[in-house]
């Protein structure tokens, strides 16, 4: 290797581009901070160890799945049902991974392995928007690194603050309501067409009907049934655009700056 290879390697991380990525995702990072706090507070109310709740934010890095795990632990569900439910919730990342594959294919291997962990809903949306107008792999990598890592830092900070203050909040503040409330805030914008409406309605009803199913598997049964009926309702329509989909999962994504969508629905 030439002595210059190290210097060339470092140029994968252009500082201005990293900052541009962090700046672009900033509204979403600000939005995820209270979500992280609410999750942290919910952790302190439930049976999950507080430190483990923080560790989960670092190594799982997926809010809805983490909240579901805390809830199922509280219900006394067996471990394989908790694991199965969390992994079903996170199955959407396979699709994001596919959407990001063209950009990643030009990154060095160690960066691919590192940045894959940070492919949250929000970082994926922000990055896909940028990559539409930027072809240079180095710029794409630096932008993704800046956006994805800074967003994760906001989630971690929110979690830690939530865990710290959670212990001090008295019960009359209805902290327990934060869990269903966050699921409402995530579920409503995920409904964007006929198929997703059917999936949500069936998932909701069957979870209630199957409440006595063994091993606390009601949610898994409800989700599987909802997906199946949603597929039936969608038969014949084209597959979803991952960008549009990720945006609908993260409500605040409507405020992604820069190359914002035409006719953004954010008021």
């Amino acid at each position, binding site marked *: 290797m030439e002595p210059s290879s190290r210097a060339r390697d470092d140029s994968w991380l252009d500082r201005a581009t990293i900052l541009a990525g962090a700046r672009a995702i900033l509204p979403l990072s600000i939005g995820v901070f209270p979500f992280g706090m609410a999750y942290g507070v919910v952790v302190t109310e439930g049976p999950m160890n507080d430190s483990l709740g923080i560790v989960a934010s670092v190594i799982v890095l997926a809010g809805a799945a983490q909240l579901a795990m805390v809830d199922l632990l509280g219900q006394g569900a067996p471990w394989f049902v908790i694991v199965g439910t969390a992994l079903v919730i996170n199955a*959407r990342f396979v699709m994001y991974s596919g959407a990001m594959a063209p950009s990643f294919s030009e990154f060095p291997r160690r960066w691919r392995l590192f940045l894959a962990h940070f492919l949250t809903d929000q970082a994926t949306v922000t990055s896909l928007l940028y990559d539409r107008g930027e072809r240079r792999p180095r710029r794409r990598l630096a932008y993704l690194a800046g956006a994805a890592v800074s967003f994760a830092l906001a989630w971690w900070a929110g979690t830690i603050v939530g865990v710290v203050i959670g212990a001090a909040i008295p019960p009359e503040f209805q902290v327990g309501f934060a869990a269903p409330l966050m699921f409402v*805030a995530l579920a409503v914008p995920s409904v964007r067409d006929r198929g997703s409406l059917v999936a949500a309605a069936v998932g909701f009803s069957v979870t209630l009907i199957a409440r006595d199913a063994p091993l606390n598997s009601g949610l898994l049964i409800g989700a599987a049934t909802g997906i199946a009926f949603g597929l039936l309702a969608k038969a014949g329509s084209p597959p979803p655009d991952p960008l549009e989909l990720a945006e609908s999962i993260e409500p605040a994504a409507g405020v992604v700056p820069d190359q914002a969508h035409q006719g953004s629905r954010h008021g």
Partner: protein
Amino acid sequence: MGEQVMIVAIVALGTYAMRASMVSILAHVVIPPRLEQALGLVAPAVLAGLVAQTLFLDHGTWRGFDAWYPAAAIAAVVAWRTRSFGWTLVAGMGSVWLLEVLLPPPLAG
């Protein structure tokens, strides 16, 4: 505690495997359209199920009617109209506190 650590570890590994699946391990595999549609329906189906479970159930049995129900309905309307996570949290928590003050004791949460 040991079991909790194991659960978090397996979920973390599985989630990483899914995130890395297409971008490194299976870079040349194309997701079949039908599977892609199913993946797109995971979020609405699971999240609606989670609303049902956390709002209406407690250890598999019905929770009684309380301030949570109308507060969740208000939050859902705000989420629909604004699509803002922040406003939804504010509206939901604000409503549940307000309703607790307004509702007669047996109905408050």
